[in-house]
């Protein structure tokens, strides 16, 4: 066992033979790793924000429907007894909130105009804890409690219909049996989310009235779940599927419901790989040169060690160790710096509203909170060590191939 210890010790001492060089190399490494750690945290924070904004604008984290509803959007595919499902799942771990909705496409009409609409029947109070819809009110108010005919609609749709607060609105849709039913509502509020599909299309009405209008009794189309965190979504969906299997229900995550989310995930992946590649390049650039210099200075010593009976493999191990140590020192300093900055700014937020034009992009807030995710940190660490391996292998390989006689002549 103890013969293994000699290489870290030799490596460590050799590094400090040239304190200035080692410090410069580790400082450069630290700055590089710090910047990349911070960038990665920015990216994670930004993505988290987009995902949150996206998922919680309307969709929620997880939705339960009658089997086939998402594909067909047919009202006939509904859940007759949502209360039972709700009680079954509401006290599951990682469930923060559950609400019910009816989702139906229909026609909205005012005194002078018609337009296609996506109607949501929601629980006025519970919905405020679920989606961000209530926060987008641009004039008037959210569905007032007890006001059964209240409607909130997207400001774009209101424009098309040429109506405002207090005006009458008629909604028409096909009921489960196939007939067309209509109902009268009164506009109480307008929402502006910045998302076109929402602002130009959405009408929000109380669930009870929607059920009555569509003749659905107690039935709903969506049970919407908010999880305690994003990372909890996928495992929670798994557990829900287990618990609800055999009941002809579908359990869909937000990313299953909106295909756009998939693209974001891909984008995030690509970005991660780029960061990791840059980490490796930074490590290589900083370390390879230092190690080659260190090796060339020690040709004679390698020859001497070879003459003493140190094998190529041992020589190889020594150089790899030395490189690893160098990268660990620089990497640790970099992580502390970058991680510290990420945590600090995670609290403070970075206000980018000065660059507001670039952020008119719909799901972004102008203040970014960097997020230090353990996975990202470990990935960067892994990439740094991988880079160190490569940077170490080249001089190590050269050192291990030296002929002792040749090296001794240097």
């Amino acid at each position: 066992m103890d013969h293994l210890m000699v290489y870290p010790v030799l490596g460590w001492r050799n590094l400090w033979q040239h304190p200035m060089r080692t410090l410069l190399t580790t400082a450069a490494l630290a700055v590089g790793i710090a910047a990349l750690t911070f960038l990665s945290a920015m990216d994670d924070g930004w993505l988290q924000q987009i995902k949150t904004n996206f998922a919680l604008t309307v969709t929620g984290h997880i939705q339960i429907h009658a089997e086939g509803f998402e594909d067909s959007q047919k009202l006939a595919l509904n859940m007759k007894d949502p209360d039972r499902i709700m009680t079954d799942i509401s006290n599951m771990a990682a469930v923060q909130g559950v609400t019910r909705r009816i989702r139906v496409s229909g026609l909205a009409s005012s005194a002078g105009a018609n337009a296609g609409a996506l109607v949501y029947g929601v629980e006025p109070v519970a919905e405020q804890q679920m989606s961000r819809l209530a926060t987008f009110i641009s004039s008037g108010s959210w569905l007032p409690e007890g006001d059964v005919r209240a409607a909130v609609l997207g400001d774009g749709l209101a424009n098309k219909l040429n109506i405002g607060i207090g005006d009458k609105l008629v909604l028409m849709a096909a009921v489960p049996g196939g007939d067309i039913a209509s109902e009268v509502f009164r506009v109480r509020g307008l929402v502006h989310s910045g998302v076109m599909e929402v602002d130009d299309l959405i009408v929000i009405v109380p669930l009870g009235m929607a059920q009555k209008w569509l003749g659905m009794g107690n039935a709903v189309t969506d049970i919407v779940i908010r999880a305690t965190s994003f990372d909890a979504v996928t495992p929670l969906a798994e557990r829900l599927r287990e618990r609800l299997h055999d009941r002809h229900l579908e359990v869909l995550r937000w990313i299953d419901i909106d295909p756009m989310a998939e693209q974001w995930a891909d984008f995030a992946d690509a970005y991660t790989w780029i960061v990791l590649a840059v980490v490796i390049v930074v490590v290589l650039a900083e370390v390879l040169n230092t190690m080659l210099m260190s090796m060339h200075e020690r040709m004679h010593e390698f020859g001497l060690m070879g003459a003493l009976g140190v094998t190529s493999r041992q020589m190889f191990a020594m150089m790899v160790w030395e490189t690893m140590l160098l990268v660990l020192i620089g990497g640790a300093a970099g992580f502390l710096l970058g991680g510290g900055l990420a945590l600090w700014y995670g609290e403070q937020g970075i206000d980018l509203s000065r660059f507001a034009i670039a952020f008119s992009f719909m799901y972004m807030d102008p203040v970014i909170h960097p997020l230090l995710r353990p996975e990202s940190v470990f990935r960067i660490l892994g990439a740094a060590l991988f880079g160190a391996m490569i940077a170490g292998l080249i001089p190590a390989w050269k050192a291990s191939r030296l002929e002792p006689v040749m090296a001794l002549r240097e």
Partner: protein
Amino acid sequence: MADILIQAAALHKSYASGDAVVKALDGVDLVVERGAFVVLSGRSGSGKTTLLNMFGALDRPDCGTLTLAGQDLLAMSAAERARFRLRHLGFVFQAYNLIRVLNARENVAYVLQLQGMDKKQRFASADRWLAAVGLAGFEQRRPDQMSGGQQQRVAVARALAAAPDLILADEPTANLDSHNGESLIALMERLNREEGTTFVIASHDPTVIAAARTLVTMQDGRIEAVNHL
């Protein structure tokens, strides 16, 4: 009949230098007995280092035969030669004999560690050998904190601690003043007598030549004379 340690026959080694071919060894036959104290002398370029490197399993001849401690050196792979050096040979070079980041004790103990000795034992052994070469109290010194003579003594201690069959020294006194040179060679002589370790030393230093019990004179890659003194 004395025990034979090195048996070399018809060793040839040529180097191409530019267009010319230099015959560094041009048919060397030599027998060295166990316990001998051999000095290889001869002008610069006569092939002393080349021959020493052959004995040290550091280099291979173009042709010829060479056995050491009963083993055919020329049949060994590079890894086998490394292991052979570790078990059977000790080296003292002209200078820079030590690993600069290790102190005197660690330099001596390093070889013992490679041989697989445990830590307590090898440190004790290192200290004993440092004392034997007159360096008690210098255990913690790094090479750059010791004089050239002291560094050479550490190298001798290291070579002896490994209990080798043969110690090879190439110009061990070349970087030392005459006083240090004399005391180093006296040390080697004493250890040869007391421990029975075989020494082959390449040198043109008169002090070293004067200490030889077998003096091998080389010229142009050949052995010109072998004198038992």
